């Protein structure tokens, strides 16, 4: 059976993706900073869906470890999904340089580093699928969230370029643009219920998008139109809004 790699499997979205792919019969490689945190998830998907599931340590910020990580995998996964991310309050990221660096390293540098490695193998093999979870926050910088937003903007541009390069080699690259999602990261925020997705919605959308080889996928269709409008607002007006 085909294998799926989930990078950042301990997040709510990573967990939902693991269940989704396992329920479809895929074997799993689950990667997280502390693989012990994945033990219960590993037992759940292996018992419930009778698949093989391996957990591996992976740290997005330790760029020097990425090649060894990829080489150590028991098999080359047909699908690799990049889920990890890091978001702190904007103000903290502006004033505290370690938070700033972490935001950029996890969301951009670390993501690019591991995807560079994965994509070389896929390019050589002339097959493979990559999905990267970016964010609608990367589509236009807003005063309340522009450090995280600009790191995700970088990731969006990277994924677009990677897609362009790998297309001729038969490798699919999908950019995932969630809006609000109910996760432990957001459980203290008052999110508007009708705009907010569950982690399982994200997992379903990613699964379907890869099946259909979609390039860009929003989670919940209206986010596409919301972001279209937000991007169309002239800068002269946009700068006066409090967003």
């Amino acid at each position, binding site marked *: 059976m085909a294998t799926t790699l989930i990078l950042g499997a301990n997040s*709510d979205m990573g967990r939902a993706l693991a269940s989704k792919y396992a329920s479809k019969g895929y074997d799993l490689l689950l990667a997280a900073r502390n693989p012990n*945190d994945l033990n*219960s998830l590993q*037992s*759940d998907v292996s*018992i*419930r869906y009778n698949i093989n599931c391996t957990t591996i340590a992976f740290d997005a910020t330790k760029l020097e470890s990425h090649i060894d990580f990829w080489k150590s995998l028991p098999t080359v996964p047909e699908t690799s999904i990049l889920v990890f991310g890091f978001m702190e309050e904007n103000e903290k990221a502006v004033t505290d340089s370690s938070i700033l660096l972490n935001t950029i390293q996890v969301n951009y540098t670390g993501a690019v580093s591991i995807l560079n490695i994965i994509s070389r193998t896929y390019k050589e093999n002339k097959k493979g699928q990559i999905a990267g979870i970016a964010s609608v926050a990367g589509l236009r910088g807003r005063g309340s969230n522009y450090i995280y937003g600009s790191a995700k903007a970088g990731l969006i541009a990277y994924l677009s370029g990677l897609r362009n390069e790998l297309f001729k080699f038969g490798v699919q690259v999908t950019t995932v643009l969630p809006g609000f999602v109910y996760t*432990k990261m957001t*459980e203290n925020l*008052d999110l508007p219920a009708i705009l907010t997705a569950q982690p399982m919605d994200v997992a379903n959308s990613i699964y379907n998008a890869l099946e259909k080889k979609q390039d860009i996928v929003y989670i919940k269709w209206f986010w596409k139109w919301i972001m279209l409008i937000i991007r169309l607002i002239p800068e002269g007006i946009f700068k006066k809004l409090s967003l």
Partner: protein
Amino acid sequence: MKKSISNWGNYPVIQSNEQSFSLVSELEEKLSKSEEVIARGMGRCYGDASLAKNVFSTLKFNHLLGFDSSTGLIELEAGITLESILDFVVPQGWFLPVTPGTKYITVGGAIASDVHGKNHHVEGCFSKHVLEMDVMIASGEILTCSPTQNSDLFHATAGGMGLTGIITRVKFQLKKIETAYIKQKMIKAKNLNEIIELLDKYSSYTYSVAWIDCLKSGEGFGRSILMLGEHAKVEDLPESLQKSPLKLPKKKLLTLPFYLPSFLLNKLTVSIFNFLYYNKMFKREINNVISYEPFFYPLDAIQHWNRGYGKKGFVQYQFVLPLESREGLVEILKKISSNGHASFLAVLKIFGEDESLISFPMKGYTLALDLPVRKNLFPFLDELDELVLQYKGRIYLSKDARMQSKMFFETYPNAQKFVSILGKYNPSKFISLQSKRLQIKL
């Protein structure tokens, strides 16, 4: 961030800070920073038992940890729902040992309320089938308990409404089945006396429950339908189903999207009951084979049916009276139906012997009915409590939103002992709206 939350009865509604966890380490860390907390599963208790200033939702703590398909022993995290267990075990020939009338509850909730099913008179409460469990107590320490290890913690946690701590891991015994179907027998009863006699007469059936029409007065007071069931064997099924006896066809759920005025819901239940009662096919007795879902979970087919009672919400009044207090049952039911507070249907069950510390069941009859919240309801329920007390019965904490403290301590014989065990494991961390109201503390 505070959120409005309420349980199944939509009463009361409170502002609460809700947190979740998927790992024990996360729970421990968050718990150490919070005061006045209570665990919350699916919020299917009707009242205020899983409401507090700080609520810990267990729903992300929901992993299967072990399953032996030859013995039916299952081990899991307490936030897993009965629905997700059934989806996994039924196709392999196993079933829950005890299930309430909805599958949308968690295993943690099943233990904390020590839920009963239609089989209590034969197979007891949920906790009877639990081999061992882990509980995170107020100190953040995890203790393993069972009927033989830390047994005081085990018995105070079963039916203890979350007050001993947060149940994390549970190991329990499933029940072997041959098919996903139930061999059902339905019998009509003309009145209350007849239905009670039928309940006694058929008490050897594994599953039994009666629906009582509360509106009918006079001769036909208490006219009802008794529903009995046994897990069907392969040879009980029509030939077309015998090939895959453990598979059920997928069904769509209906959702009640808005709050309805309560008379509409009553109309709905009235028409279902009348449809059954007056159905031409239904002479006195029907025997058929149906899948387990409509038999155990008839209301689960309509999601959010609780909205049918309107925005003010409702309470479910469920009490139990000892066997010898039959006349009390008649008196209380008459009082409710003549007062016009009642929903149309009441559910009557028979309980077997129960030796538990703080769980609800006792040998006798239990009656449950829904009452929409409105003016004078609570004073009226206090009057009913008086009768329940007088007839030596008690009220189910899992449905309760309004009982007075005195009533609790007078009707649960081990209440003081329970409180003293709590002193050992939970000096002051786990506090719900209900435990405050009932003054369950040292």
